[in-house]
């Protein structure tokens, strides 16, 4: 029975190949999508955890936007008074509270905008991935600056070089250069908090307070308490993650709709292949009926053909997803906000199983009607057609 079905598929090679391709592409897309969704969630969670930041105190306003901006190294228009750090530090659940002042510095002559971040020593435990290049030191004086890897590259500066900022009329010594970390830190300019405040005329103001708790389980109580700080609000990382995932979710819904469409089309092509197989083999199927095949057996034969078609197609699709996954991932990074830096596409066994199941269901669905048609053929009618 199996050989019979297989034989029939190899008869129309081109048509079979095209159908297989259709199934493969849509299953491949589905696999990428599912894998990406999982990878993204896992990756984002891991990244946010790595940050060592569990909450953030930001000025009132759209909290998620604010937090996202701070995380991605963009400035905020509003700020907090510097005392809020002290309030935060007084809270019993807080282990580390690091004030940050972020400001953009337009560089018309260079055609770009630099991002300056004023920090103090307390930020270092919150940035565990920071590695300094040879000879780097933490700010020895007010006019020192630490450059992110890309910032240093753009400015052509090494550790120990001096560095003049014409826009602010200040001269700095580069006391440190960060190794590339793949985060937004790479392109930033870090200065002592007080220096940054003076430079950008924001005395005693800060943009955000990054917070690590003594125990992550205290997060609920701590955020209720810190919500009381005047003009400020608390954003927890869990909330942020939720927001990003919602955002990604809507993108995914769109892609999902496209995938469903693709699956429908490949279902139709299986349907078409099987239906024309039934039509052009009417006489053969009649012969089968005449030599003793029951309706059920003819039905099964055609169903097996459809199943083979989609199973092989789905397998190809998964291979395709494995091969093309890398490129898809690169593409996705261009469009999805806050893409975590590690591999997003995780083709887990579960994903593969799900895709297989979907492919087979679509194939069976599309193969049923032609198979049923075939099983309804009367032996004579079938033999008579000349």
């Amino acid at each position: 029975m199996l050989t019979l079905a297989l034989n029939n598929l190899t008869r129309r090679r081109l048509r079979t190949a095209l159908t297989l391709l259709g199934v493969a592409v849509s299953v491949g897309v589905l696999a990428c999508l599912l894998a990406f969704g999982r990878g993204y969630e896992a990756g984002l969670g891991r990244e946010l955890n790595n940050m060592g930041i569990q909450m953030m105190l930001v000025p009132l306003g759209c909290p998620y936007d604010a937090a996202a901006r701070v995380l991605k190294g963009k400035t905020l228009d509003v700020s907090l008074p510097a005392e809020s750090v002290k309030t935060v530090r007084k809270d019993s659940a807080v282990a580390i509270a690091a004030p940050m002042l972020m400001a953009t510095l337009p560089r018309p002559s260079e055609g770009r905008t630099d991002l300056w971040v004023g920090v103090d020593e307390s930020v270092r435990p919150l940035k565990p991935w920071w590695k300094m290049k040879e000879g780097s030191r933490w700010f020895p004086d007010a006019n020192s600056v630490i450059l992110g890897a890309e910032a240093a590259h753009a400015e052509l500066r090494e550790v120990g070089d001096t560095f003049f900022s014409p826009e602010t009329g200040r001269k700095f010594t580069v006391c440190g250069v960060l190794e590339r970390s793949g985060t937004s830190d790479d392109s930033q300019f870090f200065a002592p908090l007080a220096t940054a405040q003076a430079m950008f005329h924001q005395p005693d103001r800060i943009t955000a307070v990054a917070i690590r708790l003594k125990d992550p389980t205290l997060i609920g109580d701590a955020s209720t308490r810190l919500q009381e700080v005047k003009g400020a609000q608390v954003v927890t990382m869990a909330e942020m993650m939720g927001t990003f995932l919602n955002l990604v979710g809507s993108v995914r819904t769109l892609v999902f709709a496209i995938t469903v469409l693709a699956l429908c089309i490949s279902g139709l092509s299986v349907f078409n292949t099987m239906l024309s197989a039934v039509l052009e083999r009417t006489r053969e199927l009649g012969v089968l009926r005449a030599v003793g095949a029951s309706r059920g057996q003819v039905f099964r034969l055609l169903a097996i053909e459809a199943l083979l078609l989609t199973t092989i197609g789905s397998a190809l699709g998964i291979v395709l997803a494995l091969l093309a996954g890398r490129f898809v991932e690169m593409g996705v990074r261009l469009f999805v906000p806050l893409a975590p830096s590690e591999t997003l596409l995780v083709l887990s066994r579960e994903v593969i199983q799900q895709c297989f199941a979907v492919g087979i269901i679509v194939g069976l669905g599309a193969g049923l009607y032609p198979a049923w048609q075939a099983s309804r053929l009367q032996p004579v009618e079938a033999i008579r057609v000349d």
Partner: protein
Amino acid sequence: MQTLVSAQELTKVYNRGVEEVRALDGVTFDLQKGDFVAITGASGAGKTTLLHLLGCMDIPTSGELLMNGQSTRGLSDSALTRMRREQVGFVFQHFGLLPTLTVMENMTLPALFSKRDAKESAKELLEKVGMTHRRNHRPNQLSGGEMQRVAIARALINCPQILLADEPTGNLDSVNGEAILQLFHQLNRDGLTIIVVTHNPTLANATQRQLVLRDGRLVP
């Protein structure tokens, strides 16, 4: 003598648009076990139609067919399928071999459908029809006579009581036709009931009995 097939007032009417075609009109006859019968008649006389009815591949418009004394009227599709599978062997005018299958696979199809292991009997049958050396070839590698012999072997694989053959020599030259005739004689001697539709006078005259059809009726 045991009556194997009994046709009673078999009538088949085809509706071709508004036109009614009485392909068979009240055909009655009995066949005994071990008969070798030829059905002859002009083109369009209803020979193929009758053979299809005898082979349980079609249902008469009226009249009744008894097989082994049992009526086939009102049988379900699956019961008719079982009849085709086990009681009768059918040889088509156009052979009806599946191009994608080998000689062996084609031959054993009926056994496959009745879920029987037919390896041994297939070997014997191949021997009988003289096709052992061609067992792994595909139909397009065979001559007409060879294809016909494979088709006969397939019809016999489930050990039916009756062999029905529609113009078995129609597409063959006289040498191959003679070989098929010899094969039929041999099978008939072994006890098989054979009914052939034929235009070939040699074949028709070699049988024990001829049923002549004209416009759907038996000529007495």
